């Protein structure tokens, strides 16, 4: 396995014809598919290959994963010019050679049969294929004619030179309307840490923690940087084994791995946090001394009250409090189910309070190391920008809107009226790989190269202590002639607005030049203009810099946390649109591997489902597979019931990701989209969408279907497949594997 040797880029990408050593076609069927005759298959040689390119031998190239915005480094195996397998890049400090199921599926995003293969322009009311020249001409016309403030650019999280080019374009057009939008984000956590710790992205040292108390933070699956977290989690479990307590209304993957899983009533995590804090300070277990004012404020969250609100018996709450003090160093996290409330910010700050009084700040929470070059740093997506964008739409503020890496028509709650709002936009441009809902609504669809065909640089928002830029390089030449890289399009567009960009024939040239001109603090002293530096970058795939280490302050304040009485209507259930590692926010619903991979907790596949507690189901006499109608103020969906004990009685959970109206054969018409019926409730402080604050009425329909899940039995029937041992002896003997 040779990794990224000196490469003259374009030559090795040439794909060998089928045949040769290329195929592994159905070998084992009837004699007809067995080719023993001569002259049946074709074999094509390279024109003039690099010396190291050998047919039949795979070569590994470094690149970057773009399946989510964590920005893990990748290695891609290339044989006969075809990218075959993706693996983590061991040189990336983020994922240390590991990868998640979404990263593995990158190849299926790339080889997906439903990609857009040529530019399409709306003529009449249908999209028709057009040439790139025509498309770019139209685009140029629109962009140069539009006035700055009426131009909007909607994207997912952006970083690296793509981000640079985007902001370049916006500034050239004279617009400030860049809406970076991600449904799955941690922006409230960041806001709180910014305000209380003075650092938006503190490094979280799971490995240092002795006990982790996580309020709905699904850090193993969907929170910040899952693969990185999982690696740290392993360290946390090994050696002196740490204890994980998870508080959340619906069991996430992290909850499934907890030593103690506590189903708090939906939206009461904040109260619980303060209740625990109260016990701690009243017993004097706090590691940091707490002013009397705070003590008195906390005192109002006495055990009985908290018990009443959260529905967790006091003994358990006490136990958690004592755990934090005994098993320290403690680490307390706040995730979506906690912060996705109208008063999410307060809930998060209540959680952060625990961190502060337990002295986690500085021990398990360390100051962030930020990437030296701000222009390249991540521009993170959130949902407040979606709110702003929707607002703008309804006020018909925009004439030209770009969509890149984002599909708001699918993932924005219908109540925001994005779909209808888009009608008021004169010219909508979708830069996309797939015919998703937004693209099909657009006036101009520009087909993008896949991540495996494209160039790019990525700077992850959460770096876990390092400050690294990860390079994304093409592993093979584009499958389709008519697709272009995002950067290429941007360069082409910019060169229409600015002569300066005419010098760059394509994005590669631009990237190459900008790497040449990298300042020394990025290159770590190496001479960036030197060819060997570039080759080194291609080989390693990552550029490690000595980042700027921030500092942490700790502000003690007791937040006015919301209680469910603010919104909870006793007769209804709280809808939990839980995020899945796999389909993510729905962007991977078109990947067959991920559709076929069962949900980690419920083990349901190929559909969406509504998790309900047996008691709740019994009250409505529902059984597995019954179709229920789930009605919120803003809409309703129908889906099948999956009964599980891993959810609070007052909650119903419909994972997000399914229910696409378009988006290719695998995604289309499977399941229901739980995001669409969310009420437009927003966190009052940050303006983030309160995903866990929607109350729904659940009613039985006559229909039912077979719940398709993996596994015939949910219990082991006394067969010792998984044997469980209690940890206390292990602790005595410094245990662990």
């Amino acid at each position, binding site marked *: 396995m040779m990794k990224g040797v000196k490469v003259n880029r374009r030559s090795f990408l040439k794909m060998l014809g089928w045949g040769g*050593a290329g195929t592994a076609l159905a070998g084992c069927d009837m004699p007809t598919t067995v080719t023993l005759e001569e002259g049946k298959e074709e074999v094509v040689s390279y024109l003039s290959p690099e010396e190291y390119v*050998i047919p039949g031998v795979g070569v590994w190239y470094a690149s970057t994963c773009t399946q989510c915005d964590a920005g893990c480094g990748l290695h891609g195996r290339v044989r006969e010019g075809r990218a075959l397998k993706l693996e983590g890049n061991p040189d990336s400090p983020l994922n240390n050679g590991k990868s998640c199921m979404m990263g593995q599926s990158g190849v299926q995003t790339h080889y997906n049969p439903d990609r857009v293969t040529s530019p399409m322009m709306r003529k009449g009311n249908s999209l028709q294929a057009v040439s790139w020249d025509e498309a770019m001409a139209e685009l140029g016309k629109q962009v140069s004619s539009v006035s700055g403030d009426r131009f909007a650019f909607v994207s997912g999280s952006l970083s690296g030179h793509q981000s640079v080019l985007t902001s370049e374009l916006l500034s050239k057009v004279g617009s400030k309307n860049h809406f970076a939008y991600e449904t799955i984000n941690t922006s409230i956590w960041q806001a709180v840490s910014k305000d209380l710790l003075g650092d938006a992205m503190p490094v979280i040292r799971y490995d240092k923690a002795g006990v982790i108390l996580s309020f709905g933070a699904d850090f193993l699956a969907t929170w910040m940087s899952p693969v990185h977290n999982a690696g740290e989690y392993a360290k946390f479990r090994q050696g002196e084994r740490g204890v994980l307590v998870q508080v959340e209304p619906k069991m996430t993957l992290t909850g499934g791995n907890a030593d103690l899983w506590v189903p708090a009533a939906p939206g009461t995590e904040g109260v619980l946090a303060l209740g625990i804090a109260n016990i701690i300070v009243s017993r004097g277990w706090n590691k940091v001394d707490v002013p009397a004012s705070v003590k008195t404020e906390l005192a109002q969250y006495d055990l009985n009250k908290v018990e009443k609100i959260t529905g967790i018996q006091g003994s358990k709450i006490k136990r958690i409090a004592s755990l934090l003090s005994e098993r320290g160093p403690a680490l307390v996290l706040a995730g979506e189910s906690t912060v996705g409330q109208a008063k999410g910010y307060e809930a998060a700050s209540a959680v952060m309070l625990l961190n502060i009084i337990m002295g986690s700040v500085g021990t398990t929470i360390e100051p962030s190391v930020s990437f030296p070059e701000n222009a390249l740093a991540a521009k993170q997506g959130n949902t407040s920008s979606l709110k702003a964008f929707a607002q703008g739409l309804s006020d018909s503020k925009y004439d030209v809107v770009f969509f890149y890496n984002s599909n708001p028509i699918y993932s924005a709650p219908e109540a925001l009226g994005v779909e209808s709002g888009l009608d008021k936009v004169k010219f909508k441009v979708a830069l996309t790989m797939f015919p998703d809902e937004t693209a099909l609504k657009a006036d101009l669809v520009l087909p993008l190269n896949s991540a495996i065909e494209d160039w790019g640089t990525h700077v992850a928002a959460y770096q876990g202590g390092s400050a690294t830029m990860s390079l994304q390089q093409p592993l093979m030449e584009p499958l389709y002639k008519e697709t272009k890289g995002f950067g290429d399009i941007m360069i082409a567009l910019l060169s229409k607005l600015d002569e300066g960009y005419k010098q760059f024939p394509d994005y590669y040239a631009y990237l190459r030049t900008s790497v040449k001109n990298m300042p020394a603090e990025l290159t770590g002293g190496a001479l960036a203009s030197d060819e060997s530096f570039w080759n080194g970058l291609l080989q390693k795939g990552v550029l490690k810099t000595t980042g700027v280490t921030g500092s942490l302050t700790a502000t003690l304040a007791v937040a006015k946390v919301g209680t469910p009485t603010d919104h909870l209507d006793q007769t209804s259930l709280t809808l939990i649109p839980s995020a899945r590692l796999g389909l993510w926010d729905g962007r991977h619903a078109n990947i067959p591997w991920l559709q076929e991979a069962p949900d980690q907790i419920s083990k349901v596949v190929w559909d969406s489902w509504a998790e309900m507690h047996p008691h709740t189901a019994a009250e409505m006499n529902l059984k597995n597979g019954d179709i229920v109608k789930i009605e919120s103020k803003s809409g309703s969906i129908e889906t099948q019931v999956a009964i599980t004990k891993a959810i609070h009685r007052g909650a119903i959970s419909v994972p997000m990701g399914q229910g696409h109206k378009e988006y290719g054969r695998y995604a289309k018409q499977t399941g229901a989209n739980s995001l669409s019926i969310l009420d437009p409730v927003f966190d009052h402080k940050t303006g983030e969408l309160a995903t866990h604050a929607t109350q729904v009425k659940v009613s039985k329909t006559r229909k039912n279907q077979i719940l398709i899940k993996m596994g015939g039995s949910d219990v082991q029937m006394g067969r010792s497949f998984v044997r469980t041992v209690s940890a206390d002896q292990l602790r005595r003997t410094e245990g662990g594997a």
Partner: protein
Amino acid sequence: MTATKKMKFMVSVFAFAVFAFVLPATSLADLPVPAHIIPPVGEHSGEHVPQPIDFPHDRHVNDMKINCMYCHTYARRSAVAGIPPTSKCMGCHKMIATDKPRIQKLTEYWEKGESPKWKKVHDVPDYVHFSHEKHIRKFVDKADFPVEDVQQVCGLCHGEVKAMTVAEKVKPLNMGFCVRCHEANDGPGDCWKCHK
């Protein structure tokens, strides 16, 4: 183990004895068999496969005395021997024999910037994973067999290519053919060596 070995040996001797008389190995007549190899036995009369350019192996091997692995250079490094890259052909034929129609055709391809689409002559089913590299290593490198005579080794499966213009399949290349040779020359008997 010895039992197996003895068995194998006897089987091979038997097979060899039988086939040596039953099928006089004509194709090996003037292509000497390397001393350290018990040749696989089996005949096949392959039909002539029309190629985009009917490449004259005889010219190159016989008259020019070019080694097999000069062009099929991947054979010793990879599972597949590989068709030489067009650049390799042009390396010589930029100036040599440029007047010949075949060369002109080749040059056209080169200038168009594409390679000829050759038809596969020696093909095995997709579930057979044959490795040239291993066989070259065993029979040439490890056996200190002079590389300049490598065509004798190649010839065991590919026949006397130097007598052909376009390569033709003269050996069955079916499992029996492989297995007999493996048993005779003490090759691996593990199915998973070839079938995966």
